[in-house]
C-alpha cells in the first residue's frame, strides 16, 4: 500500500497519544518522534537486522479487533533499568541489573504505549480494539526482530513499518517502537486515511 499524507497523520496521531500516555506514566516529559514510515521487504529487513548484536529488552503486543497490529517496543537492556527507576520514582541509577521488575517495566510501558495507540482508533475512529498481554523477551536486537517478524503472517512479504525513537527529558534512553499493521488492517488504514 502507498504511504500517503493521511496515513502519516494517523501514525503521528497514534504516536502522539502514546507519547502523552508515556509521559503520564513515568511522570517525566517523554517525546516519541516518528523517524520514518515506510514499506519494507521482510526478508531484506530481517537480513539487515539479524547482524545487530545489541542486547535489548523487547515487548510484543498484538492489537486485535477491527484493526490488527503487531506492536514491538524495545529498549537497550541497560536502559530498561532507567525506565524501571522512573516508574518506581526512585533516583535514576538505583536499579542496576535486569530482573523481573525491569522486565515488568518494559511490559507496562509497552502496554501504556499500545493503549495510547489503540485509543486513537477507538475514540477517534470508533473501532473496537483488543489488546493482548505483552510478551517480553530479553535478547539480541536481531533475535528480537526475528521473533517479531516470525509472528507476522507468512503470506505477507512486505510490511508497513513505523519507526520511532524516544526522547525522555534529562535521560538519554534509547528506545524504539515499531508498529506493523497486518494486511487486512492496511485496508482499514487506507480507508481511514482516505476518509480524513
Amino acid at each position, binding site marked *: 500500500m502507498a504511504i500517503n499524507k493521511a496515513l502519516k497523520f494517523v501514525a503521528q496521531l497514534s504516536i502522539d497519544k502514546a507519547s502523552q500516555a508515556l509521559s503520564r506514566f513515568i511522570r517525566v516529559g517523554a517525546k516519541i518522534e516518528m523517524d520514518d514510515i515506510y514499506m519494507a521487504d521482510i526478508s531484506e529487513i530481517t537480513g539487515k537486522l539479524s547482524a545487530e548484536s545489541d542486547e535489548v529488552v523487547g515487548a510484543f503486543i498484538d492489537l486485535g479487533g477491527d484493526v490488527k497490529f503487531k506492536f514491538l517496543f524495545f529498549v537497550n537492556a541497560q536502559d530498561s533499568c532507567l525506565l524501571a527507576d522512573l516508574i518506581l520514582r526512585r533516583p535514576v541509577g538505583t536499579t542496576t541489573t535486569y530482573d523481573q521488575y525491569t522486565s515488568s517495566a518494559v511490559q507496562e510501558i509497552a502496554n501504556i504505549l499500545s493503549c495510547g495507540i489503540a485509543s486513537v482508533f477507538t*475514540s477517534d475512529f470508533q473501532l473496537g480494539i483488543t489488546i493482548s498481554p505483552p510478551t517480553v523477551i530479553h535478547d539480541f536486537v536481531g533475535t528480537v526482530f526475528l521473533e517479531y517478524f516470525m509472528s507476522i503472517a507468512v503470506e505477507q512479504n512486505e510490511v508497513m513499518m513505523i519507526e520511532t525513537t524516544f526522547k525522555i527529558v534529562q535521560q538519554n534512553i534509547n528506545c524504539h517502537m515499531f508498529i506493523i499493521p497486518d494486511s487486512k488492517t492496511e*485496508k482499514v488504514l487506507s*480507508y481511514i486515511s482516505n*476518509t480524513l
Partner: protein
Amino acid sequence: MSHAFGEEHQEYIRDFLIEGKEHLDVLNQKLLEAESVIKNESHMSEDDLNAMFRAAHTIKGSASFIGLTKIEHLAHEMEAILQLVRQGKIELTLEIIDVLFFAFDTFGLLFQALEESNNDDECDIEESVQKIKSILSNDVPPKEASSSGKYLEEYLVESNQYIADFNELLVAVEKKHGEYNADQVNELFRLMHNIKGSAWVVKAEKITGLAHAMENILSTFRDKHQPLQPEIITLLFDGIDMIASINKSFSEHAESTADISGILDSLNEYYEKITGKQNDSKKVKAKPKNEFGSLVEVTLSDNELEQYKNVLQAVFTVDKTVMLKNIHLILVEEHLRKKGDLISFKHSPDPIEDKFDGEVTVGAVLGTDHEKADIKKTLNSIDGIKIVSLEPVSATDKKVEKPKPVLVEEVTKKTPEQKSKVKPKNSITEPDASKNVQAVKNAPIELSTIRIDSHKLDNLMNLSGELVIVRAQLARLIHMFDGDIALFRQIASEFEITKSEAKTVQNEFKELNVRTTDETDKVRKVWSHLEKLTEGLGKLEAHIAKNDVANKVHLLDDSIDSLGKIASSIQSGIMQTRMIPVEGVFTRFKRIVRDISKDLGKEVNLVIEGEDTELDKKIVDSLGDPLTHMIRNAIDHGVESPQARAEAGKPETGTVLLRASHKGNNICIEIGDDGKGLDPEKLAEVAVKKGLLTEEQTDALSEKEKLNLIFLPGFSSAQTVTGISGRGVGMDVVKNMITSVNGVVDINSTIGKGTVFTLKIPLTLAIIQVLLVSIGEEIYAVPLEAVLEIIKISDTDIYAVDGNPTIKLRNQVLGLVNIENVINIKGKNDNSTKAKKVVVLTDGETQLGITVDSLIGEEEIVIKPLTEHFSRVKGITGASILGDGQVALILDPISIIKESK
C-alpha cells in the same frame, strides 16, 4: 468660492475631481442597487451601506482639504444621513434614495462647474441640503430590529422558544390557580427576562418595554410569594401574544405596526396597584438566576417522606481535577445508594462529556435511616467531593426546598452560565401524578448545538444520495469485468493446453532425436526453435499469472462494498440531523386548546403523547397548520358542551388526544376526541345539500367513504360557522397539506364516542422505498407503501366493464390502468396475450391495478423533485436516478387512483 484658484490649487482640484468622480460612481452604483433592493422588499447589506458612507465621507474630507466648501457641506449632510442609515436609526426608504440621488446630481453639477471654470459659484446646493435636512429633522420612527439583520434570525429562534416556554408554563400556572409555586414564577420571570434581553440586543424597543413591564410584575409576585391572580395571568397572556405578534412581523421583515400602549398601560397600572410605585425601569436589575436549586428539586408525597427517618438533600461538587467525572459520579451514586434510597441524583452539566474538565455540581435527595453526620462522612470519604450543603427535609414540607440562598450564590458564581429549558410535565397524561415521585425536569441542560441552514442540509442530503448512486454505478461497472474475467480464465486454460501440447512436442522430438543418430543442422535448428517456443510460453505464463484480473476485481469489489457502507452511513447520518422531535409543534397546542376551550365555554383536557417522536424538520414545520386546524375542529365540533356531555353520561371535561408514534418507516399522528363523533349519514346529507354530490352518488358510498366526504373541497360540517373552525380553511386543505408530504389521513369515528384522525407520514421526504418496474421502455418507481400485492394475469383474465379493463381478484373487481395513458406518453401498445404482471395499488380505500412488463426489484431511492415543467403531469411525483444512471419516474399512486375514477 469667489476667489480665483492659483496654479497649484488647480492641480489639487484636478486630482480631487478625478478621485471624487470615482467616489461618485460608487455612490451612484450603490444608490441604484439600494433602490432595486428596496423595491424587492429586502435590505441593503451592511457592506454596501458602509461603502456609500465611506464615499460621502471621503468626498467631504478631500473637499475640505482644498477648501471646496459647497461640496464639503453637501457631502457632510449626505454623510450624516448615511450614518443614521448605517446605524439602523432610520430606514433607507425610496424617499431617502430620491433625496440622495438629488444630492448626487447636485454633486455632478458642482464637479462639472469646477471642471469647466474652476469655479462653483454658480451652483446652488441649498435645495439639496434642505431636502436632506428635512429628512434628518423628520421624526423618523425608530425601527424595530432592522439594524441587526444578521442577528435577527438568531433572535427570532431564541425569542420564539422563550415565548413558547412562557406560554406553556403560564398555562400550567393557570391550571393550578391559587397555588404559589416559587419555581414556576421564577422560571416565568427568567423567561421574560431572557425575552427582554434578546429583544434589547436587536433593539426591538416595543418588546423590551413590554417584557420589562411584565418582568416587574412577575418579580413582585416572586418577592411576595403570592400566587398569580387570574387577572394578571390574562394580562400576561395578552402581553406575550403581543410580543409574539411583533416577532412575527419581524420574521416577515416588516415593521411592527402593533400598538402596545394599551397593554403596556394595563401592565403598568397593575404594577402600580400591587406595589404602589411606578414601573421604574432603573430599579429592576437582572439578578443571577438560581439554576442550581433545581438540582435538588423533587416532589414527594407525605407517605414517601414518612417512610424514611431522614430525607436529606445534598449539594456537592466534584473537583475539576478528577479525571473520569462520569465514573466518579457513579462512585458517589453507589456510595449514597448503600446508605438509603436515592430519590434523585442530578448533576450539572448533564450529560458530562468525556473530555469535560470543569467542576461538576451534583444535587442528590436521599431517603435514609442514617443520620446526617453519617451521610456527611460518606461524602467526605470520597475523593474530590466538596459538600456545599446538606440539609434535612422535614416531613411537613411537600417540596424539597432549595439550599440556603447564600450557598447558592456562592456556587452559582462558579457554575458557568447555562441555558435551561423547561420540559413539559406529564401532569396532563397522569392526573394523579402528584402521588408519584416526580422529578421536575428542569435541570439545566448544556446545549451544544449548531444552527445550520436547512438548505445546506438539503444539499448534503442530495449529495449523499448522489454518492449512493455513484456507488451503484461503480458496482455495475465492475460487473462489466465479469466477461473479461471469464475470457481471461478461458485464455488461461487454453494456454495450459497449448503449453502441454508444446511440452509433448518437445518430448517427442527429444525421443526422435535420440533415435535419429545423424544430427543434422536442420534438426538442431528445429530443436532451438522449440526451445525458444517453450521459453516464450513460459514468459507468457508469468504474464498471465501476474495480471490476475479476477483478484483485482475482487479487491475493487471489497472497496466498493465499504464505499457503500460509508455512503449509507453518511446518508443516514445526515438524515438524523434533520430529525427533530414533534414536541415543538405539540407544545404550542396547550395554549391553543386553552384559548379555544375558553372561548367556546367547553372544558377540554389536552393529552399529549409521544412528543419525543422525531420527524424530518421540513415535515414537522408543515404539520403546524393542519394540526391546529384539526385540533380546533376537535374542540369545536367534536367535544360537546359540558351540559350535553353530562346528559350523555360522560365526564364534563372532554379529552383531546394528540399522539405521535413510530410505525415502521412512518410516523403516526393521532388527533382524537371523546366527543360526539361524526355521523356518516349527516355528512352525506350535507354533501348533497351543498351540491358536492348527488344523492345517488352518496348512496353508493360505504360508511368510511362517507366519513371521507369531509375532505371534499367546500365541505364544512358545522351548522353555524364559528369564529374558530370556520375560517374558510376546510378539511380539504388539511388533507392536501398532508398529502403534499406524502402522508395519508384516515378517519375513525364512532357516534357518541368520539373521532380519531390518523395521519400517516413518512419519516423523511428525501428517500422512499420503491418497487421498480418497467413499462414499455421506461422504468417507473412505485412507492412501496402503496403496493398491496403483485399478481400475474393473462390477457384472457381481463374483462371490460363500462369499457374499462378490469380483472377479478379473489371475487372482487379490480380496475386496471395503463400508466402510459395516465401520464400521456406514447408507448408501443403491447397486445400480446402473454402473461402480464399487475401491481395492485391502494390509497387506503380504493384499489387499482397497473399492468407492468416486468418487475425489477425493491430499492431505496432519493427523490429529485421535478421541475415546474412537469409539475402538472398527473400521476408522477418526482424522479430518481438509478444506479446505472437511468432515470426512473416516481409514480404517485394517489393521483393515479384519483385519475382513474
